[in-house]
């Protein structure tokens, strides 16, 4: 493992050093707002970050395994296509924007526009798990992939307004109660028994393991799955007729 302290470098130097360090495991301490860490990385390096990660952490990344002991800011996992980010804190707005593969685990809250424009294709199936709550517009324009919001240790609404607006694929799993008027109109709701959680069980187990949270506590509250009511709901938005 190679260890750097972020305060020893200018922001662009730090990015360059991280890019050029050949070791498979790198730790960065005293991080405070440095942007674009692991941005566009096509490798499977393990990166441990201590501090507050700056905007666009892991943006466009394909493969790195990132653990953050601290909070994230805006654009975490923006358009990420493979790899994993495990974040022991909260994230700001547009986490998982346009994500198309890999996984993002957040222990605390997510800000506005969680996982908007997420998409899936063949073996690419992005997953976001949020431990507490998510702000408004979660899953807006979502085309594929999975968003899971657990509502653990939270005194806020599980999701904010306009959840799933314009969604046309993928699934959102909400644990426990949520304000129904915050859901977009085009969504179906299914309450799932514990046996119907097999699709997401690996992600719940991973969450429980990463953040040392008892899985049985997570499973004792029922989940609701949100999906779009009809396939391609906007196919005729501009043509005016329904086939």
């Amino acid at each position: 493992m190679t260890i750097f302290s972020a305060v020893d470098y200018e922001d662009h130097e730090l990015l360059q050093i991280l890019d050029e360090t050949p070791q498979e495991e790198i730790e960065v301490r005293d991080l405070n707002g440095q942007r674009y860490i692991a941005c566009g990385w096509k490798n499977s390096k393990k990166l441990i970050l201590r501090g507050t990660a700056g905007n666009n952490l892991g943006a466009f990344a394909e493969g790195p395994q990132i653990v953050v002991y601290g909070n994230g800011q805006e654009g975490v996992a923006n358009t990420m296509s493979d790899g994993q980010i495990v974040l022991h804190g909260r994230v700001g707005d547009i986490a998982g924007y346009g994500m198309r593969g890999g996984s993002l685990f957040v222990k605390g809250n997510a800000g506005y526009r969680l996982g908007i424009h997420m998409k899936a294709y063949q073996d690419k199936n992005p997953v976001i798990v949020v431990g507490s709550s998510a702000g408004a517009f979660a899953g807006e324009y979502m085309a594929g992939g999975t968003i899971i919001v657990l509502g653990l240790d939270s005194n806020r609404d599980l999701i904010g307004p306009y959840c799933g607006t314009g969604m046309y694929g993928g699934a959102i799993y909400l644990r426990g109660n949520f304000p129904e008027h915050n859901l977009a109109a085009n969504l179906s709701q299914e309450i799932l028994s514990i046996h119907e959680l097999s699709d997401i069980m690996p992600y719940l187990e991973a969450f429980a393991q990463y953040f040392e949270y008892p899985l049985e506590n997570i499973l004792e509250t029922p989940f609701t799955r949100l999906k779009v009511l009809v396939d391609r709901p906007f196919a005729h938005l501009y043509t005016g007729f329904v086939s």
Partner: protein
Amino acid sequence: MLLKEGQVRIPSGCAIAGILNQQGEGFDGGKIISCIANMHQRSNGLGGGFAAYGIYPEFKEHYALHIYFDCKETRANCESYLNKNFNIRLQEPVPVRKHERIKDAPIIWRYFAQPKEEKLAYEQLEESEFTARAVMHINAVIPGAFVASSGHNMGAFKGVGYPEDMGEFFRLEEYKAYLWTAHGRFPTNTPGWWGGAHPFTLLDWSLVHNGEISSYDTNLRFLQMYGYRCTLQTDTEVIAYSFDLLMRKRGLSLDETIHVIAAPFWRDINEEKVKRLRRVYASLLLNGPFSIIVATGNGLVAVNDRIKLRPLVAARKNEFLYVASEEAAIRVVESNPDEVWSPGGGEPVIGLLNGREKLLDIPQCNGPAARTA
């Protein structure tokens, strides 16, 4: 060869930050400079500035006018206007230091002034309205001069450069304020000139803004009907004047004002009073993305547009309230806050000095205007 914007991508957005000591104890500008410098990448060197409250206690009964001039003749011209209308207790250059990265600075003076009694009587105005009109007059009518700030016991220090350089240029380490706000600018649609740097101010108001107001022209036309002159070529100016109109002149509460500028969508408005505000002041709805910090001598409010299209983070530690575009900017000066949170769209973070109940004390209208002839 220097590449122009468009040939090179400058990934950027503005940065804002604010720090309030709720007990009213002053601290120097070092802390707010560290905050805003941490977000260096959000600005591009075409604007930086600070507002500081509590810096002129020995002149707290006077309007502290910070005025920028393009040349000596302009200053003479402006001073003759000021001398006709104000009693000036002290006038002096705002102290600056030479700075390698701050170039083409205008002439910057400050005037501690009070409106002349006979002028107030003649104009039938109370002193804050008289002073606000004087600010509009200087900005609109005296070419080459503009007022950077005009409040009591406060001042704005702004110009073209990175904010941390601007802080050194204006020697902010020599001032003690209980409330600081700061801005790093990345101009989008409007020129990066000294008057276009934030904060924008009027009387005790100051305002820093990240975002852009696409309703600028609508807001401008409405404000013009009430005597506001928008001359600084930047959208943010209308936000400052909107707060002034709604709160100082119309007496709306802060809550009502937030409902006007960041009104919820119609489908989310339930209260009849909010509906009425939405209709009456439809032209003061600020459309477009924004996060702003509005300050007065009593405290600050930080708020986003109704669907939160710009970042905003708040934190508390003992008597300090911090607000900033990025959490990192707060952690650089307070590594272990008691609480950190992101407010939702249209959800204000309000910090007032202990013992103050309102963001703005409305001036009493029992001055010369109310006196019988």
